[in-house]
């Protein structure tokens, strides 16, 4: 009994105090699927960035080869070739650069807009809050794909258009979460203390309150990358997103529908990449949520 007690107390005594991020990292590692997904994601990102320098030639991805139109997967072309004889693996790697970049940048646009509007609404309250929240309601009522299609048509389909369009149609949930966090955090003593010291509103909002509201924003940011990739690929599949010859995982499937009778591999592999990438992102987001949720103790 005494032995156990003493070992327990020494353990407590010698345990270093942990910061919140260290605790979060420990919790994250315990989510095994989340860790595996993050590793796979890292591999996909590495492959997409380094692939062209490493084993894929630009020719294979962009130059049509009339001798090998729609050839099935083989030793030369691991994932087969498409309707003009380009290597599908090479196009998946080049297309991945585009799709992942669009996902990341659209997430940045969405998170910036969401954090900005949400913090303004939550911090100032009153008429600012009502106006911003009504605007949020309006944006939540319009089906996103419809507006993205309209914007792509009118502004001309391009990478910039699709990034901005997806970004501006995905900030609403972030804004709501940030607003509700600001509503409760602004009543806390540290905000009062800052105000007594004469700290300006902008600095209180983004220097003092925002760091305390980061955890859900990080989770939302991760999940937004996934949904942004799904949206980009869907719009590109409809022919209104990323324009050929630039490949994206979505526009590679644009012509696939006519080919599924004769060359199903053209349709299978790019979509599988979208699916696995989004799946990994969602598992990672789930692990982050578990890791950053302060209610969960370890």
């Amino acid at each position, binding site marked *: 009994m005494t032995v156990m007690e003493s070992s327990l107390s020494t353990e407590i005594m010698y345990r270093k105090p942990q910061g919140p991020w260290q605790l979060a990292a420990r919790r994250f590692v315990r989510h095994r699927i989340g860790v595996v997904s993050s590793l796979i994601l890292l591999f996909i990102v590495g492959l997409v960035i380094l692939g062209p320098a490493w084993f894929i030639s630009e020719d294979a991805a962009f130059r049509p080869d009339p001798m090998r139109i729609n050839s099935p997967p083989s030793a030369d072309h691991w994932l087969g070739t498409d309707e003009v004889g380009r290597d599908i693996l090479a196009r998946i790697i080049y297309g991945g650069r585009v799709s992942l970049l669009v996902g990341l940048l659209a997430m940045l646009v969405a998170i910036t807009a969401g954090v900005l509007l949400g913090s303004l609404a939550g911090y100032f309250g009153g008429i600012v809050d009502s106006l911003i929240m009504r605007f949020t309601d309006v944006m939540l009522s319009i089906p996103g794909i419809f507006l993205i299609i309209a914007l792509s048509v009118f502004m001309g389909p391009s990478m910039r258009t699709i990034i901005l369009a997806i970004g501006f149609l995905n900030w609403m949930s972030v804004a709501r979460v940030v607003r509700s966090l600001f509503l409760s955090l602004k009543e806390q003593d540290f905000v009062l203390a800052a105000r007594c010291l004469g700290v300006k509103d902008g600095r209180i909002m983004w220097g003092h309150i925002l760091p305390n509201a980061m955890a859900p924003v990080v989770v939302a940011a991760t999940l937004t990358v996934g949904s942004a990739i799904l949206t980009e690929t869907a719009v590109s599949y409809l022919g209104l997103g990323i324009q050929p010859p630039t490949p994206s995982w979505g526009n590679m499937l644009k012509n696939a529908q006519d080919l599924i009778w004769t060359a199903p591999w053209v349709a299978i592999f790019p*979509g599988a990449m979208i699916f696995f990438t989004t799946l990994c992102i969602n598992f990672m987001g789930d692990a982050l949520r578990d890791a950053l949720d302060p209610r969960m103790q370890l």
Partner: protein
Amino acid sequence: MTRYIIKRLLISIPVLLGISLVAFFLVQASGDPMAVYISNPNLSAEDIARLEKAYGFDKPVYVQYFYWLRKAIVGDWGQSFLTHQDVLLMIRQRLGNTLILMGTSFAITLIISLALGMYSATHQYSPADYLVTAFSFFGYSMPSFWFGLMLIIIFAVKFREWGLPYLPAAGMYPIRGEPSFFQLIRHLILPATVLSLISVAKYTRYLRSSMLEVIGQDYIRTARAKGLSERVILWRHAFKNAVIPLLTIIMLDIPQLFSGALITEQVFAWPGMGRMYWEHAVWIDYPVLMGIILLVSTLVVLCNLLADISYAIVDPRIRLS
């Protein structure tokens, strides 16, 4: 109660106006509505100027908005630039087909997600529960158009090759032969499955977690202590309370359902409103685009209103807050 309904009604008016503003400025102001005519070689510059004047495009944008709004309120949504048909009439011809698809998929979604969600909540941490959780992650990571293509490859292409009974890959009825109810069902199976997948994944997870939360509460323990049968406890006591937050999620998801329907209609060549939207978007036919966005968003606002009112009837706590 009446006061609550009136309050909710009054809130939705500015939201509807806001929707029309956003739609108008995004659709009309970001593009050139005359683009269809300018590309027509038979029209001279004077003709185009005359048309611009006739449509009111020479006026400032906010004046155009009020002109447009005044007409839209009384049901004059303009004519398509492409077919010169009345926009409302065109929408009415296609809306039904979209609602058939959405309604079927909604019914499938409810049945499957209720069954899966209830099962995995009552069998927490069982292998089946893990399987359901995995399935729901798969479901909402799935690009719906690709899922549709895969289903076509398997059930339309491969099944036909293997000599099995196969399903049609496109349309609502066969091109030849009489349209029949049986044919409609056959054509509905694949698109309705695709449209249901994401919602099934989502609602299953929500129902599971909200059931688990309710089951942990005191009044369920009381019901068990009274000796009620497990079935009565689950369905009459727990389910009723667990399903309320789920209803909110379902209502908030209606816009996504319309977005999903657009993509699904495109994959399966389903002659619905989403497909019409896409066809006319390519031609920059903005009266049709405006009309569809406005109609869909208004439906969404109305559904939210109905949902809020019905919760207030079901759950008295909501009215107070």
